[in-house]
């Protein structure tokens, strides 16, 4: 069995496993649902996620220890992850193969030659690590934008699977929605289509993870190399070189991704995987200039405070930034979130959405609750998002903590924000129409939305009595038939208590009980509507957003949650302590 066959099997295996993990990231105990699948494994194996979060949090969070395995294996064997494991790499290799396999050998050799621009990925890496590394200035973890595992996880979770599901409903009964998914798709497609120009374009020029492996594999014990210094220079070895690492000349170890194609292609069997350096000579260090390194580092350091000039973490925070239950305080949250979209895929109600840039560039694709999307705000009995978060940007809280029961009774429930009523849009407040859907759906007990009953005289609601027979009043004015017969309208007559209207036609009104004092001819009666007007009890509201989701005023909702009062930070508190 040839080694490249095993490499292909490995790539197919890990790619399938990766897609499977994305597919199963929905809450449930069917075999194709979350249950115990290690859905974060690829993100945990990714040392860039580990190092990024170590820089911002000074700790290696639980499952990210897996990255150590990758690092150790890379130090021993070289960039095996890129050539054998990385699902994004596999995708690029495959599309690159489709695009170029019919080209001539000479053309392929030209496509797969080493290019100076391959150093760009090192600058990308240094730029992002620079953003995260200096707490005395400001740190921000933005590596998730281009980290290949985060990028491909996000793309599959938030675009590929939802698009398939919208047509076939395989993993989700109803369609899933993700705002701004087009940008995620645009970037994903750009990386894929660039393989038409140069195979493994992303891997060679952009991938910061590949760059990181390129830096740490310089001491690799085993490496690809020639076993003789001279050969007939047929360059066949470079024909399908995945890394663009010049195996025919002085092989560039930091670019080699261990595809073993060179070894397979060499008719003279001059290439081997060995402990000694290539007899033709090799280049172990990445080809980066000191000047480029300093520039990318400096701009990485500089860009964070520059982005923060918008004061989005301070007084200018956006009120629509409502984070999932258990999210860390905003700055710590941004120091952990890698924008992988796991929480958004796992969320059973689809309320967790990729954030846009309205509250600063850093917010892009971080989880934000949008109660207008999804099946019902943040579900009370659910903590799935924290369970799937690989970096604990959303802490894996227990239900008791979320609900503030048991051991957490003295702390109270986790609040995501507070619901505010817009009395200018609310039916009972602005239009004199009964409604209180929000109150009905408020899931906490006692309800955070309560009502006060008022009786308002309706427009043109003063009517003149013609005569009264039993429970029926005949009026002088003409009224719309059935209009007041909904059970919410009352008739008030001098000297009588309010009585409910049970029926009306153009000239009569019938009430539920006999009048104590019959309205006489020409006396004035008033038609009143009974309104239960909603109020929010700020001490009870947890900001779950179910009210906002259910509000029948469907455009701009008449009750909306905003971030004030969230538990995770003290500087957005609204309520004083008792």
């Amino acid at each position, binding site marked *: 069995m040839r080694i490249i066959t095993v490499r292909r099997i490995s790539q197919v295996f890990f790619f399938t496993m990766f897609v499977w993990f994305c597919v199963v990231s929905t*809450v*449930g105990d069917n075999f194709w649902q979350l249950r115990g699948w290690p859905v974060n494994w690829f993100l945990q194996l990714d040392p860039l996620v580990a190092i990024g979060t170590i820089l911002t949090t000074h700790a290696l969070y639980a499952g990210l220890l897996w990255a150590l395995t990758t690092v150790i294996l890379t130090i021993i064997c070289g960039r095996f992850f890129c050539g054998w494991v990385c699902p994004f790499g596999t995708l690029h290799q495959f599309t690159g193969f489709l695009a170029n396999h019919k080209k001539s050998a000479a053309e392929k050799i030209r496509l797969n030659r080493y290019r100076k621009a391959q150093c760009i990925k090192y600058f990308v890496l240094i730029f992002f690590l620079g953003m995260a590394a200096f707490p005395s200035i400001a740190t921000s973890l933005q590596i998730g934008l281009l980290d290949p595992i985060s990028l491909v996880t996000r793309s599959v979770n938030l675009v590929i699977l939802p698009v398939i599901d919208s047509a076939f*409903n395989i993993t989700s*009964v*109803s*369609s899933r929605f993700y705002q701004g998914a087009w940008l995620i798709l645009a970037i994903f497609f750009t990386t894929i289509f660039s393989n038409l120009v140069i195979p493994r374009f992303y891997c060679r020029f952009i991938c910061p993870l590949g760059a990181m492996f390129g830096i740490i594999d310089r001491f690799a014990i085993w490496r690809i190399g020639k076993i003789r210094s001279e050969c007939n220079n047929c360059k066949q070895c470079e024909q399908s070189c995945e890394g663009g690492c010049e195996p025919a000349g002085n092989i560039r170890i930091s670019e080699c991704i261990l595809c073993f194609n060179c070894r397979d292609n060499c008719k003279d069997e001059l290439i081997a995987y060995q402990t000694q350096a290539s007899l033709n000579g090799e280049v172990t260090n990445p080809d980066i200039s000191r000047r480029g390194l300093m520039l990318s580092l400096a701009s990485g350091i500089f860009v964070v405070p520059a982005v923060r000039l918008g004061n989005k973490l301070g007084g200018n925070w956006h009120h629509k930034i409502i984070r999932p239950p258990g999210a860390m305080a905003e700055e710590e949250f941004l120091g952990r979130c890698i924008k992988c979209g796991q929480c958004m895929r796992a969320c*059973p*109600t*689809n309320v967790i959405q990729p954030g846009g840039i309205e509250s600063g560039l850093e917010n892009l694709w971080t989880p934000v609750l949008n109660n207008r999307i*999804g*099946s*019902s705000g943040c*579900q*009370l*009995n*659910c903590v799935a998002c924290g369970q799937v978060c690989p970096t604990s940007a959303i802490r894996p809280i227990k239900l008791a903590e979320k609900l503030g029961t048991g051991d957490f009774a003295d702390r109270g429930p986790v609040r995501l924000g507070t619901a505010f009523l817009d009395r200018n849009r609310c*039916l009972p407040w602005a239009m004199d*129409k*009964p*409604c*209180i*859907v929000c*109150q*009905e*759906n*408020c*899931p*906490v*007990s*006692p*309800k955070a939305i309560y*009502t006060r009953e008022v009786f308002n005289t309706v427009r043109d609601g003063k009517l003149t009595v013609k005569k009264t027979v039993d429970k029926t009043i005949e009026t002088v004015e003409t009224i719309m038939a*059935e209009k007041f017969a*909904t*059970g*919410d309208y009352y008739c008030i007559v001098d000297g009588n208590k309010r009585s*409910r209207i*049970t029926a009306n036609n153009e000239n009569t009104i019938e009430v*539920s009980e006999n009048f104590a004092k019959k309205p006489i001819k020409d006396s004035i009666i008033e038609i009143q509507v009974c309104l*239960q007007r909603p109020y929010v009890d700020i001490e009870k509201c947890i900001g779950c957003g*179910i009210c906002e989701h*259910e*509000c*029948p005023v*469907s455009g701009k909702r008449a009750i909306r949650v905003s971030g004030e009062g969230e538990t995770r930070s003290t500087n957005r508190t609204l309520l004083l302590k008792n």
Partner: protein
Amino acid sequence: MNRTSKNKLERREFLARAGKAGLSIAAAGTISYLLYDTTVPRNKVSKSVSLPDFSVEPIKGQAISVIKGSNRVESVNKAIKLIGGIERFVRPGETVVIKPNIAFASPSALGATSSPKLIAEIVRLCYEGKAKRVYVTDNPINDPASCFRLSGIGEAASGAGAKIILPKEKYFSNTTLMGGKLIDNWPVFFEPLAKADKLIGVAVVKDHHRSKASMTMKNWYGLLGGRRNIFHQDINTIIAELAILMKPTLVVLDGTEVMKSNGPTGGSITDLKRENTMIVSCDMVAADSYGCGLLGLKPKDLPYLGKAEKAGAGTTDYHRLKPIFDTAG
């Protein structure tokens, strides 16, 4: 190659090209002709379905039974037995749809949803009546899959052999209630009803701030689709219209544990109170008229009961039906 043959070739080539061009023009012309439409486009009106009548032949004195007992399973068995047994309602080979209240993603102990044990028992009873298939369905307010999971009904019902139908957009069809005001070309969860020979509604007695009480009639709200929340503006009419629209075989009103406050979501077991009552009825207006007593209400406190009665959906004077009272367990 001489000149003539070259000309010949060119001519042949030209003719071939002209032929293809002609065909293309003809094709374009034909398609335009076929699609040509001078009428001004109008908004599409989806076609309307009418809901089947699932009711059974009434038998005097066997319209409603009220059982006192703490065990739902025993109560419902006895209640159904007293009004003719399951054989009266489910014939061998029939398909039965059960519509519980699964509106909220909350654990069954909180009483906001039907008891899974009760649903499982009704499913079992249907199979005992030799039903061919039993479906359990609802279009919940919260996330459907979570509602079926958390309420325990999904597991209990499928454990008893029923099939769960979760709402999908394509499962809804528009319907109109003749003489109605609100249900006018409105989407209902028709797919399960289309399969059914019999329909059983299973509701919980719950406090409901807007309509005062949520029982078997309000339970049909869960078959409405679309932006059904707008009907809250006229809650009494919509509940009454649902009672007229739906003609179930049987309704089961579970007052074993009654949600006395904070309804219809509840959220705390302190919102519940044991009333140990199970009502099974062919007349849902009568069932609700009895059931509202468990919340300390009288039928006249609920305008929708009067409206439904007026429209002939049933009677609020349940005594007239000679309810069968008994105890179980």
